[in-house]
Each structure stands twice: as structure tokens, then as C-alpha cells.
């Protein structure tokens, strides 16, 4: 066996191991979102949000396999905007540096992440069936189309030499997180706030039922994010790759840490107490922020960026309550606002213009918000998106799933 063949084979194996285990970590984020959201809703809506998370993951996997992956990656024109509909998970191209199945697996878990973001924001009042139908559109079409425009080398993501804009979003602050937040935002607007949330007396607190789940979900997401950002290097078969991935792990972890600390400080200064739910939002906002470019900042910059993103998201949470956008888990602030911050910070450490980044954000937001709005609106007209007032009062667990999350614990909180 000659050295080149050996190097090729080993590189192929390196990439496979790396992407599969990174992908497993990203898959694990589905559990993180489930636990986080289950902890932040009231107990009467807990089973429903768990069911929603499990089923959205399942639906995303199938929808992306049947259609989404083809739209996003197969046979598309470079720097174009209209995707083709080639079909091809199975075929590993000649000379590819890893199996096509591995590419697919790593990509499919990203789709599920984008969709998971939505479920928290619409919690405690949406029909399960309406949500699941939206999931199909989101994961089969809406996300893949903007995915093609960016990572699929469409008009946004293709390099300037190739006729694209050279939009830069390493692991998806905009492409995944902002997109998820925009789909959530359009849904929340059509859906309205939870009953009793906003009244003349101000904003009514609706405390989450289970804080250990909130912390657990956050740790799971933190861990999974190492695979999310690390794996986005896509190959690990050279010293350069190894250096990059090492830096990504370090920076990702540091940005999350900084985000948690900034939220802690703000919560303590402004509200006098260390609100755990805001602190976890801070950590996650730090992660979302660094995701657009985890490979280029110095560790000190990563701390700074994570802190900035978390700080802005902190105030955004309040802002959305002011304008009566009811987001029980803070998803729109954490993934949307911090996602924008992340994308706009890229020019500080990479050679790309603010304008390009801004256009990228605008295009992604407009597309995802608009297309989602149309889908939500159609669902609303055809079958309704919201459970009845009585069902909302008694909880979605009873109306949608028929089983209580904690049948033996809860007093008549309702």
C-alpha cells in the first residue's frame, strides 16, 4: 500500500469518526431542548412539550431524508437561489473524503436543532397537530432552501470568486438559530400570548415547574454544542483541522461560560437575585453568539463575544415581554437576537464585510419569517393553531396527550 492511498483511507476514517461522534452530540441536543423546555413550562403542559420535542425530532429526520437534504445539497447550481430536486443520500461521490451517509447524519441533526427552537416559544397553547404539520414544512422546505443559499453554496454562501456573496456563518448562528427563531416569531405572532400573561396589572409570571430539568437541559446543550461547532469544521484530517477544532472547543466553552456570568451579573444587579432561568438563557446566548465564528477569535475574544451576546439577549427577553410577544422559554431572544449578534461580530475576526453579513441576516430572516408565516397562517385557517381556552386552562397535557406529567405530585394548581 502506498502512502497516498493510506493517507486517503485514514483521512476518510478520521472524518467519519469525527463527524459521527460530533453528530451524536448534536443529536443529543434534542434531549437538551426537551429538558430545558419541559422545565420552563408549567406542569400541566409538560407531557405535551416532551411529546412535541420527541415527534419533531422524528419528523425532522424523515422529512429531511425524503426531501430536505436533496433541496439543500444535491445537484444545486453554485451561487444560485432556486434549488434543484436531485435525490441522493446513498451515493458517495468518487474521491469524497467521507461517506455521504455521514454527511447526511451530521446535517440531519442540525435540522432538528432548528426545529427544536420553535417548540419552546409556542409552548403551552399550540395544538400538537398544528405544530407537527408546521414541522414538516420547516424541515423539508423552509430551512433547506436557506440552507442551500448559504452552506449549499447558493447565492449567499458561495464565495465571491464563485459569484456568491461570501456570507460567513461557520456553524449557523444565522442559518440555524436565527432561522429557528424567525419561524418561532411568526408562529407566536399568529398564536398570541398565553391566556392571562399580559393584563392591565402587567406581565404575569408563570414560573417553570421543574428547575433541575432546566439545568440539565442547559448542560446537555452545552455539551452537544461542542459537537455542533466542532463538527462544523467538517473534516479532521490535517494538523490545521486539528488546530481549528481545538480552538473551536475552547472558544465555544468560553463563550458559554462568559454568557452565563454576564446574565448572572445582570440578574443580580437588576433584580437582586440570581435567576437561574435567565442565567441559562445567558449561557445559551453565549453559545449562539460564538457559533457564527468559533474558529477565528482568540479565547479572550470568545469570552467577550459570548458576554456581549448574552447581555443583549438578556435585555431582549424583557423587550419582547414589553411588546407582548409571549415566549415562555426566551427562544426568540436567545436564538434570534444572539444569532444576529453572532453573525454581525464575524467581521471582527474574519475577512468579510458587515454589509454582507447584514444582507445574509436580512435574507434569512425575510425568507424564514415570510414562508413560516404563510404556513402558519394556512394551518390556522384550515384547522386552527390554538387549543381551546378551556383546554389551555386545564393544560395541553390533558387535551393533547391524555396523560399528566406528574400525576401524583401536583395539587390543583389550576
Amino acid at each position, binding site marked *: 500500500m502506498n502512502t497516498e492511498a493510506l493517507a486517503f483511507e485514514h483521512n476518510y476514517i478520521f472524518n467519519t469518526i469525527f463527524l459521527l461522534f460530533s453528530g451524536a452530540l448534536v443529536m443529543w441536543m434534542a434531549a437538551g431542548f426537551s429538558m430545558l423546555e419541559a422545565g420552563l413550562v408549567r406542569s400541566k403542559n409538560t407531557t405535551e412539550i416532551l411529546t412535541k420535542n420527541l415527534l419533531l425530532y422524528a419528523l425532522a429526520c424523515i422529512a429531511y431524508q425524503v426531501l430536505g437534504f436533496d433541496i439543500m445539497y444535491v445537484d444545486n447550481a453554485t451561487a444560485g437561489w432556486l434549488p434543484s430536486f436531485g435525490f441522493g443520500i446513498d451515493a458517495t461521490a468518487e474521491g469524497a473524503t467521507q461517506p455521504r451517509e455521514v454527511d447526511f447524519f451530521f446535517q440531519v441533526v442540525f435540522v432538528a436543532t432548528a426545529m427544536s427552537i420553535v417548540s419552546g416559544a409556542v409552548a403551552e397553547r399550540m395544538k400538537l397537530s398544528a405544530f407537527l404539520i408546521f414541522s414538516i414544512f420547516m424541515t423539508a422546505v423552509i430551512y433547506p432552501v436557506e440552507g442551500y443559499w448559504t452552506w449549499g453554496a447558493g447565492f449567499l454562501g458561495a464565495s465571491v470568486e464563485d459569484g456568491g456573496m461570501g456570507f460567513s456563518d461557520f456553524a449557523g448562528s444565522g442559518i440555524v438559530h436565527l432561522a429557528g427563531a424567525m419561524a418561532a416569531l411568526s408562529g407566536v405572532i399568529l398564536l398570541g400570548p398565553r391566556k392571562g400573561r399580559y393584563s392591565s396589572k402587567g406581565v404575569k409570571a408563570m414560573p417553570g415547574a421543574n428547575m433541575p430539568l432546566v439545568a440539565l437541559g442547559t448542560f446537555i446543550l452545552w455539551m452537544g454544542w461542542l459537537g455542533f461547532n466542532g463538527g462544523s469544521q467538517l473534516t479532521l484530517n490535517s494538523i490545521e483541522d486539528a488546530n481549528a477544532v481545538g480552538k473551536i472547543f475552547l472558544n465555544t466553552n468560553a463563550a458559554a461560560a462568559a454568557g452565563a456570568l454576564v446574565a448572572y451579573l445582570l440578574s443580580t444587579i437588576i433584580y437582586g437575585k440570581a435567576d437561574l432561568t435567565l442565567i441559562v438563557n445567558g449561557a445559551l446566548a453565549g453559545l449562539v453568539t460564538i457559533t457564527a465564528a468559533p474558529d477565528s477569535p482568540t479565547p479572550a475574544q470568545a469570552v467577550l463575544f459570548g458576554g456581549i451576546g448574552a447581555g443583549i439577549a438578556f435585555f431582549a427577553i424583557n423587550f419582547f415581554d414589553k411588546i407582548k410577544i409571549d415566549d415562555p422559554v426566551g427562544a426568540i431572544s436567545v436564538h434570534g437576537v444572539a444569532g444576529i449578534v453572532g453573525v454581525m461580530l464575524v467581521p471582527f475576526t474574519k475577512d468579510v464585510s458587515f454589509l454582507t453579513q447584514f444582507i445574509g441576516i436580512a435574507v434569512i430572516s425575510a425568507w424564514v419569517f415570510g414562508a413560516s408565516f404563510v404556513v402558519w397562517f394556512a394551518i390556522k385557517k384550515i384547522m386552527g393553531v390554538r387549543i381551546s381556552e378551556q383546554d389551555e*386552562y386545564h393544560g395541553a397535557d*390533558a387535551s393533547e396527550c*391524555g*396523560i399528566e406529567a406528574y400525576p401524583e405530585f401536583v*395539587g*390543583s394548581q*389550576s
Partner: protein
Amino acid sequence: MYWLTAIVRPFKLNDVYDKLIDEGIGGMTVTEVKGLGSQRSTTEVYRGASYSNDFIPKIKIEIAVSEDSLERIIEAIVESAKTGKPGDGKIFVSKIQQAYRIRTNEIDLDAI
């Protein structure tokens, strides 16, 4: 003095509470209970086995009231707790011999 025990629907507690505050009552004590009566429970299915909880969650409100205000308060509860469907609940009235306020050693009408 009278001891008034009202059994109401959990989701009416807030309305009853607001109404009673309007009526100027000074205190009350609330307990989560389960009730059985003419209201039929719903049947749920868990893993294919159906089950119904015969006992339905209710709220018990206990208030010590003076003779004067008794009627007014009963009125207030009935008004704010009614939906017209089976399960609205009951009010029971009994006599109290004495009342004490632990903090001040005040007794009877001064205590409630």
C-alpha cells in the same frame, strides 16, 4: 360567629377571592381537596387502559364570619362560583363557640 365551609371549582378560586376581598373579608383559609358528587369525572386512556379518577379536584374555602355578614358572604360566594354545570359545589354553615387571634390574644369578633 359562624364557620362557613365552601367547596368550589379550583378554577373559580380567583373569582371567589376577588369577590370576597371586595366584600371586605379579613381572612380565609384554603385547602386542596378531592370531591365526589353529582359531577361525572372524565375518562382517560393510558397505554390503552382507560381509567377515571372518581375524585375530582376541588378547593375548600373556610371562613369565620360574624352573624351580620353571613348572608352577604354566602351570596358573594354563590355569585362568583357559579357556572351552572354540575360540580359547582356547596356551602355549609356551622356555629363557632370561640375565636382567638394568637398574635394579640384578641378574642371572638375581634379575632376574625
